[in-house]
């Protein structure tokens, strides 16, 4: 395996995005609008109350802003990448090279994500921070752990998107899967409504599913809603889920390879 190729893929993806500068403006504007919409909804929902179930409005605002880079990075790109490559038969091109396709996907999409972080996430976060105001992390520990959780979150969502994309080998389309994954993530990850506002049995159930590590746990850690012991414990559980999802992705890839039907000649 040629390890140097993978950083090169990430860099290439990053560079290829520089070509479409207008896309950056459109995305940044769209993200700003949707963030302000969510802030407005929570402000209205709190209706002047200082706390709801022990959560303050500034905490809720920070939570919904954090949910956005965690969940709403362009993970459908992964799905379309895999699904499209299968549908057009372009996946053949990757199989002709001495590269591992899932690793190729990982590095390429990390390149895209890095690009979006630099050009969209950071500027938009600054704008929201200076206009509406964001809370700092609950402590230095929670702040540092947030980055560890962010890494788990990103890799988990990447693995989920990959899994759905790979199902296209059997279903031969990724588009319906995108809606499926989007719907599941919005509810189960706690990105729209945090688990602490859900009925207890539902919250307990969702709290053990891997989706919660994509959005809920990283934000909850940032806000200090988990004590250090619980933070370490949940990081461990998140890593176990990530391991399982990665193993499932690799197994599905191995199976897909032998079942592969290269379409379109």
């Amino acid at each position, binding site marked *: 395996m040629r390890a*140097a190729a993978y950083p090169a893929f990430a860099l290439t993806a990053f*560079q*290829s995005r520089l070509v*479409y500068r207008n896309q950056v403006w459109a995305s940044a504007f769209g993200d700003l609008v949707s963030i302000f919409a969510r802030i407005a909804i929570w402000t209205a929902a709190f209706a002047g109350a200082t706390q709801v179930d022990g959560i303050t409005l500034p905490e809720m605002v920070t939570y919904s802003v954090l949910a956005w880079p965690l969940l709403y990075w362009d993970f459908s790109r992964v799905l379309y990448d895999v699904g499209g490559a299968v549908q057009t038969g*372009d996946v053949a091109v990757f199989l002709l*090279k*001495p*590269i591992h396709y899932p690793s190729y996907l990982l590095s390429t999409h990390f390149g895209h994500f890095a690009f979006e972080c630099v050009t969209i996430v950071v500027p938009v976060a600054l704008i929201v921070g200076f206009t509406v105001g964001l809370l700092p992390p609950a402590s230095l520990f929670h702040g540092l752990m947030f980055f560890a959780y962010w890494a788990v979150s990103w890799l988990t969502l990447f693995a989920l998107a990959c899994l759905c994309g790979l199902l296209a080998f059997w279903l031969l389309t990724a588009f319906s899967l995108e809606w499926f994954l989007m719907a599941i993530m919005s509810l189960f990850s706690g990105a729209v409504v945090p688990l602490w506002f859900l009925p207890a049995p539902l919250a307990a159930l969702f709290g053990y599913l891997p989706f919660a590590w994509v959005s809920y746990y990283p934000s909850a850690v940032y806000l200090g809603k988990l004590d250090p012991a619980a933070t370490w414990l949940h990081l461990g559980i998140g890593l176990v889920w990530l391991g399982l999802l990665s193993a499932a992705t690799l197994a599905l890839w191995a199976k897909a390879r032998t079942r592969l039907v290269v379409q379109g000649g």
Partner: protein
Amino acid sequence: MAIIAASGVEKIFRQPKRQAGLGGAIRGLFSREFTEVRAVDGISFAIEPGEAVGYLGPNGAGKSTMIKMMTGILVPSSGTVEVLGREPHTNRLTNAAEIGVVFGQRSQLWWDLPVRDSFDLNRHIYDVPAPRFAENLARLTAMLDMEGYVDRPVRQLSLGQRMRAEIAMALLHDPKILFLDEPTIGLDVVAKDTVRKFLAEVNRDRGTTIILTTHDLVDIEQICPRLIMVDDGKLLFDGELKHLRQTLGSRRRLKLEFGTDPGPITLQTAALVTDEGLAKHFLLENEQTSILDVLTELGSGHDLTDIKLEEPNIEEVIRTFYQNKPALAGARP
């Protein structure tokens, strides 16, 4: 030792049967019937290092499927394929490092980036040492006349330019075997000619083994001394192009033109094909027959104004071959 060996290779695709109409589509969601398509049917051949082989057949003959099995993308349903002494699909990564592949209908270049960036990415993928990469890049750029556009983004290139870049990219890591699936498809005459001359040169000077599928017979004529013909997934012919011509293509055409219509003419040495009165077309069945033989038999006394002898072109040879396929199926040299 053969660099590529195929033995009794079969590939069967299972395709879901689609029933017509909305009702059929809904029924298809619940119960699926499958039809089996035998894309490659018991093909065996061996290719030696340094050969250039044309893999020829009509649409749907199983050419691309065979290429995909040799490159390790598809798994044969039965039989064995060995490339460089290995089974390609179980050793995909090792195999991929030693072969180069060009698909005429799929691009391997990064659409938004300059050609040079795609090349550089390939340097990392194949782990080509920097000096050798620089040397290969310079040589390929010059040979394929790419100086003018290596720094332009791929999306701005013409098809001919892009195809040359695709071929260069497949050769940057000095592969032992180069597979080309319809490399000249859609190119204009000049671009086709550049590509053909280049491929013949790579085969001759670098000793790179070339396997090429095509519809275009000129590709084969100019690049590949050896021809493998397939149809319906079956092997029809495997041998030298000139051998195919000799066995099937010896029927030269003779056209005799007269000042006044001599009436019907029957000859021993040539068979009349069409009679237009003043112009008569014959086929010379025998390789040894010369014009002199025909003229001697024809004798004097006809108002003969012109004689034209035409060598059969390869298209005609192949057309004859496919038309007579049932009779010739067993006639492998």
